[in-house]
């Protein structure tokens, strides 16, 4: 009987957390839609989430493209279709790998830092101090991250795609001997605007997921994840894990809807 009771208690807690998380998203959306917006903080967060993630995106994008160049070439050669290396690399990056890997990189680099920063502000009563000044913490802490992530993710994904395509070009054309015109020409023939839009929609939605989950976990650090430094540490881990899982799950649904 006690096991059933415990199970019920845990289930109720989870339902409550999901409700709080849903309300958090609705509030964030409302405060994003209703001015005033804190433009200086938005720019600061675009710099943090977007600009400062560029190096990691350049690195991962170029190596992802190079790996695709190798794998694609050896697979396509089996069927005598190595001329399609360009479209294969391009489509794989633009539709799938670009948005997903860029989002996972941003989660690890910026999402975790956002959770830790907001979490520390929560446990050291800085968020309460904001509230008691008659200021809205959502407008100062959450909305700027939300907007910055929505702006930054598509741009970072575009950078990822471009360097990835160039990485595939280096391997396919310069190393393995695929014709330069074939690589680029076939890509232009097969990659359509719909494919680019699919990648854009995905990266936008991943920006929403990352900012929502990471801000939520930080904002409720000490409430749902224990107290003190350990609470912030747990919140940060949970934010990265939950964001990453949601990105992959949501990617599946987006792909099945957009195809």
């Amino acid at each position, binding site marked *: 009987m006690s096991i059933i009771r415990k199970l019920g208690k845990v289930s109720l807690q989870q339902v409550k957390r999901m409700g709080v998380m849903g309300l958090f998203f609705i509030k964030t959306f409302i405060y994003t839609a209703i001015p005033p917006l804190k433009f200086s903080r938005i720019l600061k967060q675009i710099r943090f989430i977007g600009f400062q993630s560029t190096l990691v995106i350049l690195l991962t994008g170029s190596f992802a493209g190079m790996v695709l160049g190798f794998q694609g070439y050896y697979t396509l050669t089996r069927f005598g279709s190595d001329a399609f290396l360009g479209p294969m690399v391009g489509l794989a990056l633009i539709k799938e790998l670009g948005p997903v890997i860029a989002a996972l990189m941003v989660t690890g680099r910026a999402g975790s830092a956002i959770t830790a920063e907001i979490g*520390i*502000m929560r446990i*050291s*009563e*800085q968020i*309460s*101090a904001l*509230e*008691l*000044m*008659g*200021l*809205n913490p959502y407008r100062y802490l959450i909305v700027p991250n939300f907007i910055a992530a929505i702006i930054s993710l598509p741009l970072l994904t575009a950078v990822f795609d471009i360097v990835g395509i160039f990485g595939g070009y280096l391997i396919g054309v310069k190393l393995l001997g695929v014709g330069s015109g074939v690589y680029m020409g076939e890509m232009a023939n097969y990659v359509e605007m719909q494919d680019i839009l699919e990648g854009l929609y995905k990266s936008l939605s991943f920006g929403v997921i990352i900012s929502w989950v990471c801000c939520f976990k930080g904002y409720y650090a000490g409430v749902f994840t224990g107290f003190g430094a350990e609470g912030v540490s747990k919140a940060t881990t949970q934010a990265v894990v939950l964001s990453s899982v949601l990105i992959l799950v949501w990617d599946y649904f987006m792909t099945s809807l957009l195809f």
Partner: protein
Amino acid sequence: MIKIENIIKSFDGNEVLKGVSLEIRKGDILALIGGSGCGKSVLLKHVSGLLKPDQGNITIDGRDINKLGGRSLMELRGRLGFLFQSGALFDSMTVFENVAFPLKEKTGLSGRAIKDRVLRELENVGLSGSEIKYPSQISGGMVKRAALARALVMDPEIMLFDEPTTGLDPVIGHSILSLINLCHRRLEFTGIIVTHQIPEIFDIVERVGLLHEGVVRIEGTPQEFITSRDPAVRAFIDKTVL
């Protein structure tokens, strides 16, 4: 001005406040004393609206703080200053930026006017010369002073102090209380001070309340408090003063 009526609050089934009632007149300061963990800070957070009671009402100028929401609550909080036990300074901002923050966000003052006001406030709390330091670069006493400057810079009508002297040595603790006294004379705010600093606190407050076992055991002037024969009061005074 502040009326607390029959506040009951539990955390995970543990009843911390069991029907607390108090009234603080405009311009008065009430010292709220009591043993550690008896719910003093919890009560202070109820007055500021950070926590909601399970039962009971808190009215400020006749307005029930628990029934306010959104903009009305923000407006009420704009009249209120809160000195946190930890200071709660924004650790990514300098002392100057911390004190300037509410002015920048809540007033339309020019940069020059804000600078003058902040420097004056920092001078009032004895922090001239520490403007460009970060909270992690200054001592605990200086953090409390900077937090006090930030709380007072908007000329609040109500000030809530959560253990302003805890963790400080007696000399600095005394200087913080003197500073609060000076600010009270200058701004004439209504206040509540949660503290263990007795008997020094009796010199700067008009009323004293003892929170004991979840209720206000006694509330009166410092003189009434000191001469009280209530066993809980006597035990508290004898252990802390003698």
